[in-house]
């Protein structure tokens, strides 16, 4: 019997209804399951709104996608972990018959591509490289080292990500810290964000304290953001804004602080056990995350992410971010707002059931989303060790929490469709708690200082598409986790994903609120 790789995991919507067997039930035997499944006739399914198609990878080709770029001509450039680079011509056609052409090979784990001035730039293990096919024969013939100031000791975990271009024309690269032994001794510039001038090759240190920054991206307004993975000195995965002079919490890279000059040379070693919200007392340059991804609830390893710049052609989430997760083989969604000068916001589930942990996302010219994956030696969900998939919007609008925004006295929820007012009016349908994280030397840490947030009142807008939540329990520096129950739209369709996790670094003041 063939061992077939079937497509997408089956429908998971019911997990929202908490029908997962509890341990107590398990102890009494699996037979008890059937009785506790609850189903509603109007249940929604992610696949009604977003499809997943799996590219058929030719035999003998290892498509461990680590870098992915839609070129100006619409072709998709795919960099693999083994260092091969394939050109997928017309990636918008039949996924059963893709034509992959080997563009070049032998790179040292390229984990990002950028097209600029006729070159393709990529961060390899040891250097920022640019390459091109000068004679037009379909393969690269010129490789130039743009900068190799960062070092590697030969540890597997010393990955580099990027580059991404900023408005000043510099290219940002984020560097992983090693994990485990360092065969050639301790290397400098590990756990940093640096930027490189592609014209001069000059490198500038930009931010310290990164751990495993597997995604880096330029926002539509020109700021740089990155995702970091839970681990030592990073109790929960996060999305953070990168600015010059930031400290993001991991001490490994501080061995390079003297070389980096001010302000980095003033950074003290962090004290393990400090609440991150209090870290500015130790280091005024400490940067709080924009969004925390609570462990397991919102994936385990956020990687590549993309802003939706399709102007509504990929569904109702224009301007928001899609964030891939390398463990849960799913994509999450993030909305950001700037509150008192800090970018912060909420994360939500979006689409699950991809074939393995996702490293890279890329929009195509036709507004479909390419999803490139490799488990790369990490455990995770799914039924394939690597591959390439494509997600398209069906044109149906899912009933979702579109945005959760902070208010001085609570939150505002905007939905993609009008809510059932009766359900939305019942306070019992809102469960909220808040918790925060410490900066600790241990590997990952718990949700700390957890408290229930009492929703005292709600107000539903006239059009039924937004709901204001009022509470006096807001805590700055805390994740506010919201779980809605029984929500449906006015057509009776269940809310597709009833959870939202808002990272409330700053509470907006009244003045800001009054501009609504």
């Amino acid at each position: 019997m063939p061992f077939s790789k079937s497509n997408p995991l089956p429908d998971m919507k019911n997990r929202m209804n908490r029908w997962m067997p509890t341990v107590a039930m398990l102890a009494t035997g699996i037979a008890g399951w059937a009785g506790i499944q609850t189903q509603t006739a109007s249940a929604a399914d992610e696949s009604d709104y977003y499809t997943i198609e799996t590219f058929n990878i030719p035999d003998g080709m290892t498509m461990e996608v680590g870098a992915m770029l839609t070129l100006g001509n619409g072709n998709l450039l795919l960099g693999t972990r083994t260092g091969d680079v394939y050109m997928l011509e017309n990636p918008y056609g039949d996924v059963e018959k893709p034509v992959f052409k080997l563009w070049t090979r032998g790179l040292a784990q390229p984990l990002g591509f950028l097209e600029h001035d006729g070159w393709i730039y990529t961060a390899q293990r040891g250097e920022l490289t640019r390459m091109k096919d000068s004679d037009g024969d379909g393969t690269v013939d010129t490789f130039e080292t743009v900068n190799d100031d960062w070092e590697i000791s030969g540890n597997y975990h010393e990955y580099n990500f990027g580059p991404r271009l900023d408005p000043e024309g510099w290219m940002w690269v984020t560097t992983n810290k090693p994990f485990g032994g360092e065969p050639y001794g301790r290397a400098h510039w590990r756990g940093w964000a640096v930027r490189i001038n592609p014209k001069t090759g000059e490198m500038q240190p930009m931010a310290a304290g990164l751990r495993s920054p597997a995604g880096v991206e330029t926002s539509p307004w020109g700021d740089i953001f990155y995702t970091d993975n839970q681990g030592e000195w990073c109790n929960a995965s996060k999305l953070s804004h990168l600015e010059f002079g930031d400290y993001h919490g991991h001490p490994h890279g501080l061995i390079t602080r003297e070389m980096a000059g001010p302000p980095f040379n003033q950074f003290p070693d962090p004290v393990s056990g400090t609440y991150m919200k209090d870290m500015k007392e130790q280091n005024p340059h400490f940067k709080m995350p924009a969004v925390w991804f609570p462990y397991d609830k919102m994936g385990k390893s956020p990687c590549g992410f993309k802003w939706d710049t399709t102007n509504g052609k990929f569904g109702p989430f224009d301007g928001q971010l899609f964030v891939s997760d390398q463990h849960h083989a799913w994509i999450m969604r993030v909305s950001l707002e700037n509150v008192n000068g800090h970018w912060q916001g909420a994360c939500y589930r979006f689409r699950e059931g991809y074939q393995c942990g996702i490293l890279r996302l890329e929009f195509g010219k036709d507004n479909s989303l390419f999803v490139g994956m490799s488990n790369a030696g990490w455990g995770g969900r799914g039924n394939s060790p690597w591959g390439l998939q494509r997600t398209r919007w069906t044109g149906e609008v899912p009933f979702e929490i579109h945005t959760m925004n902070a208010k001085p006295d609570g939150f505002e929820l905007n939905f993609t469709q009008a809510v059932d007012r009766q359900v939305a009016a019942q306070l019992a349908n809102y469960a909220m708690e808040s918790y925060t994280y410490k900066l600790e030397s241990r590997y990952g840490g718990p949700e700390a200082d957890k408290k229930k947030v009492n929703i005292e009142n709600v107000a539903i807008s006239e059009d039924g598409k937004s709901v204001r939540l009022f509470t006096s329990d807001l805590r700055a520096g805390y994740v506010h986790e919201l779980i809605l129950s029984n929500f449906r739209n006015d057509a009776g369709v269940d809310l597709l994903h009833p959870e939202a996790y808002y990272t409330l670094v700053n509470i907006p003041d009244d003045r800001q609120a009054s501009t609504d």
Partner: protein
Amino acid sequence: MMNLQTNYWTRVVAAMVLLAALKAWDGTASPVLPGYERLRTDNSTTAEFRGELLLGELGCVNCHKAGEVVAARLGTPTAPDLTGIGARVTPQWLTNYLLDTHGVKDGGKMPDIFHSSAPQAKAGAIRFLVDFLSSRGGPIEPATIGGTETMVERGRTLFHSVGCVACHAPEGVDVSGARSVPLPDLAAKTTVDQLVAFLLDPTAHRPSGRMPSLKLEDAEARDLAVYLLRGQMEAADADKPAQVEGIGYEYYEVSGLSAIPDYDSLEPVQKGVVREFSVNIPSRSRNDGFAIRFRASLDISEEGNYRFWTSSDDGSRLLIDGNVVVDNDGIHPNQVRNGRVQLSRGSHDLEVLYFEGGGEEVLQVQWAGPGIQRGPIPIERLTTATGIEMRPTTWTENYRPDPNNAGMGSRMFAAMRCVNCHEMPGIQPMSPAPDLADLNVDNPQGCLGDNLSRRAPQYRLTQDQKSDMAAAVRSLKAGAEPLSPAATVKRTMASFNCYACHQRDGIGGPDESRRQFFTTNSEIDLGEEGSIPPHLNFAGAKFKPAALKRIITRGELHVRHYMTTRMPMFAEEHIEPFLTAIHQVDAMENNSVEPPFSEERIDFGRKFVGVTGVACVTCHGVAGQKGIGINGIDLSTAYSRLQPGWFQKFLLAPADFNPGTRMPNFWPGGQTAFPDILGGSSTAQIQSIWSYLSLGKTMPLPEGIVPEGTVAMELIPSSQPIVHRTFMEDVGPRAILTGYPQKLNLAFDANIVRLAKLWRGRFFDASGVASGRTDRFLSPLGTDVLDLPAGPAVAILDSANASWPQAGKTSRDIGGDFKGYTLDEKMQPVFRYRLNSLEIEEYPQPVLEPGGPSLKRQFMFSGQVPDGKSAWLLMASGTEISKTAGGYLVDGKVAIETTIPDDSIRIIDDGSVRRLQARVEPQSNPQLAYKIKW
């Protein structure tokens, strides 16, 4: 007869009575039982339950007799065996302990039996008791093991990592005192030898098993004992070193070695004592560029002719009494050399020198002699004099027990009821106390009262402890059933302080302040699952009964090899009731029923475990082979440990069993991602994995697991060259390899901008970095490997014979930059780099020739050479370079063919090597080329 008027005793009495009186006020010395504190603060038990725990642990029924049922409920531990106490503890410490029981061991369980005695009478009684006890097996012998700072450090690390601090207080960290089992001033109490013996087998003298065996190696026990008794080193005469068994070593880090260095001119990175001649010394942090000097005193028991061997990669040398016996120096693969020497009886200075330049590292030393077969030198023959003599701080050698006093002491041992707890041959308990059933817990003069009678032992119980014990006695008097299984589990975990490490039913697990001491032995991506011992919820359902017994009582099936904390060993007789009870409490229906077993299912199971299935091998080892990503628990142990029913349920919802686990849920909501396999039944799919795992160590390897040494991802240049960036042994983490279809291969080092290695035949295995989470530095697959000179290809020198710049393996401080490469029409790379003011293009090309391909190196130079300096191309280096017809011959095997005129070429003697170098003149002659044949 009661002549107490020695000076010593008067002083002791005066001092200690005063101290005891002061101590009586502070009230801090109540008995500390971490399990009790845990239950009390976790607030999850009744006063009666906690009181029974105390009644048992404090040995109340040793005096207050109880019926069989009650006695079994209380499970009283056996007190320390004092039959040989005189050999283990100094008389002075015994004296101090009896004089001030609670002061000397703050929080100990032993009661003060002299709390109401008049000072003189007390001093007399104690002298009798001490003379009696120290004549049991005494006197204590001086330590034979000396201490070193390195031993203290290693012991400190062990103490704070293997699990000691789960129960005892860590050094310098504020932990909850009430949960720390107290340690007295051990340096005052005993010797290193005695403590080593105790640590290796704690239950020999403390049969209660409350202090379990941590499965220490002999050397670990010595380190730990020296650490615990480090106070003796401070007090010791540092000029009086003791001999310790072992080999003293000094470890040096020096890059670029090609011969044994002059150790005296170097600063050792570390010193210490080891037990074998090996490259595996503690804390070695690199695999290349290091050197070790071993020194020991060799004990020769028979005069005669001895022969010694060293086997090493790279060089080694063995000296005896300063004379070279084996010379195995120089850079070489593992090779064996030997030498003979005549040795007289007695001790001789043995010295083994070793260095490692790069590549593999090996060192072995063997000997043979009169009546001695060839083999390693037994450790008993080797001593080193780095230790400091250690002796108990209370030690006075002139103490001699008086036999008459000892006789009196033996009677007091019975009269004071010592023997009720501490059994002693030939001594019978006397003057019984009231039976437990007759106790009046409200008697103010009883053990629980506030106004103790002279005959009641003083435990210094807290009010909480007293009221819990009173509640327990009342309830036991009202009638007692045997403990329920659930209570048995909880009681055992409290008594043996399992809760210090393991959580069960919401109780226990390491205290917040102690978690930092639970670590992994290498960085491993497992979070706290890798460092904190597992919880024991459902343990009775999880484990097969025989497996749980082996885990707890035999030290077997401890599968978390990455965890530094060790699971201790407990005695079977103590744990048997617990084992029976936990399987009863956790029983799950049909838990042990084996699922269907068939070859087809094994095959499916194997596929599920492999990378095209759910890829268990990403995080789990299989049958001794490492996992691809994390090397987690080896799957081949699952069948012998786990119950099939539990396994099924666990795989369906791992996070329900281990919240926060890294183990993914591969059947979310019970649904499969593989609907075509086994009818899409999740149950059958998981059963198939079980069937596969049931093969244990004989399981065929699943897809994705490649046995060590296998070529997993061979790159084969067929029609055109393959350029491949990777990590490579002896080249570095920025190696750019090129394999040509002509079966010639090269490695370029982009860090030091040099051609580093040539070889013929097969090219390279890419799996060193391109599979799993690996960072293996692999060597060429082919043959005829030729290492090219270290240092950059080109240098600008003050003069032709100036020394060539050298660089460490990650250092790029040789004034150069790698600039990239272009591919010619045959896809052959042209490397571009800069060295100071010179821009260089290097174009290697294979040349087919009879006998195998050779390499043409073609260079194009541009830029300026600074005035007063000259630029040189390093063509080759070796110990012998001679001129031939068409060029030069290096070391008799590497031929350099070139048309570069002779007057542009120099042979430079650079001390250890000769260099063949060609003048670079970019303006007049921008191109240079030569051919390497080997």
